[in-house]
């Protein structure tokens, strides 16, 4: 493609313009009575609603975000803490890989939603059940991404380390782990988004707090405004987590920073 690349400012301006047209058009359509605010409230009223829900002594919205986020992070971190070491082992040992692959192939295609009945029967609807849903929805993905990342580590580097006298453990610590880290992190970024869809589903089915619960109850009252506030909150929270994750990547992979590569 010979299309010219935009610089940062041009990109920001074009993005803002697109957003403005979209939101402005929406606002206009509602104000001119083309759309019934009962079905789709105007952006301005959604924003107002968001502010009321986020302020005041109760601040329900912040409480919901906190609940959902803590569920996501607990489930996601558990998946990561167990999945990454197992993935490393699977990536390095073809026997273990061959033994576990069929099991993973059976579990992995199951949507997180399909775990809800079993998890409710086993754990009720308290916090553990939410963690379990997030875990079941993300664990196999962590495993598969880590295995893949481990297998893609340059074999020549492993030989180089062994040639310098590295034991097997030293090779894992100094070569396999840092070599697989970039791909593990980009895998985890995808998994984090998956974890969010898991928790929202779980909260819609059985919970009394969290963004999923808030959206679902709003639907019971035909409160489209609150539904939209909940949806917008999900977007913003995931965006924020993504930014934090990128920061973590920059911190952990100083050798891959932009401009470093020549």
């Amino acid at each position, binding site marked *: 493609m010979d299309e010219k690349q935009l610089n940062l400012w041009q990109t920001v301006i074009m993005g803002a313009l697109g957003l403005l047209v979209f939101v402005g058009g929406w606002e206009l359509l509602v104000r001119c009575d083309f759309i019934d605010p009962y079905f789709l409230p105007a952006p301005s009223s959604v924003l107002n609603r968001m502010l009321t829900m986020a302020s005041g002594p109760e601040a329900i919205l912040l409480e919901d975000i906190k609940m959902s986020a803590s569920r996501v992070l607990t489930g996601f971190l558990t998946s990561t803490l167990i999945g990454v070491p197992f993935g490393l082992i699977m990536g390095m040992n073809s026997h273990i890989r061959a033994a576990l692959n069929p099991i993973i192939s059976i579990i992995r295609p199951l949507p997180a939603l399909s775990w809800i009945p079993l998890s409710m029967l086993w754990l009720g609807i308290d916090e553990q059940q939410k963690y379990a849903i997030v875990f079941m929805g993300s664990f196999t993905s962590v495993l598969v991404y880590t295995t893949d990342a481990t297998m893609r580590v340059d074999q020549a580097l492993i*030989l*180089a380390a062994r*040639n310098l006298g590295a034991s097997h453990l030293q090779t894992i610590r*100094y070569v396999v782990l840092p*070599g697989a880290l970039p791909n593990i992190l980009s895998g985890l970024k995808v998994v984090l988004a998956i974890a969010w869809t898991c928790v929202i589903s779980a909260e819609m089915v059985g919970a009394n707090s969290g963004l999923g619960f808030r959206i679902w109850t709003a639907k019971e009252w035909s409160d489209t405004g609150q539904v939209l506030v909940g949806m917008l909150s999900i977007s913003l929270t995931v965006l924020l987590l993504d930014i934090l994750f990128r920061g973590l990547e920059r911190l952990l992979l100083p*050798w891959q920073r932009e401009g470093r*590569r*020549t």
Partner: protein
Amino acid sequence: MSVPVIQARNLNMTFFTRKGSLGALEDFSLEAQRGEVVCIVGASGCGKSTFLNIVAGFLEPTSGQVLLEGDEIQGVEPRCGMIFQDYSLFPWMTVLENIAFGPRLKGASRKERHQKAQRYIEMVGLEGFEQAYPGELSGGMQQRVALCRALANEPDVLLCDEPFAALDAMTRQIMQQELLHVVSESQKTVLFITHSIDEALILSDRLVVMSARPGRVKAIYNNDLPQPRTLDVQITDHFMKLKREVWDLVQEEVMGSMTALQRVK
């Protein structure tokens, strides 16, 4: 002469693939004395790299053995430091960390290993790049780091697998001089693989010509060209005559294997 540092005895190496077996080395024997630079030339695919990988302990020969100061090499051998063609530096380590990696594995303290690395950095003129990552360096600089990394581990033998093949002509000459300088100072034994006859004549004390696959020793030359092999030496009749001889031998093998291939087709 004392016991050779490296003794390869009757090495045979056969790779088994789905399409059948492939002989890489056949009855290959070679010795190298302490401080000697042995260059191995041969057509591509003749088993040069296979031989080096066996000495490093990356591969186990089908039969035969390699002795390092009289002991058989079994498993990866850190006393034979390898310098790879594609440098194989650790991209997540700085120049300093790459060079200090060998000592670090041995448990050298931070100060100790950094001082050591710093010595080698100064030796090859990489001051100011200690904190750079390999991805920020040119090919020639990366290969210097690779050389330092191997040396800082204090191996008895340096195994060089066409280390300068990817460098431009100027840088290659500089690196050749640097290698010779290091070797003469440290009395390291060097096994150096190349497909450049010029390079082999400039570097070697002894030059081994390999046959086409499966690799055998076709000829061994004692390289008596005067040191250092400056440009003046490289245009003498003696240099040209040697080059011609080696070239003819290699050529013969290349042609031989090509007609063999054509017959198969």
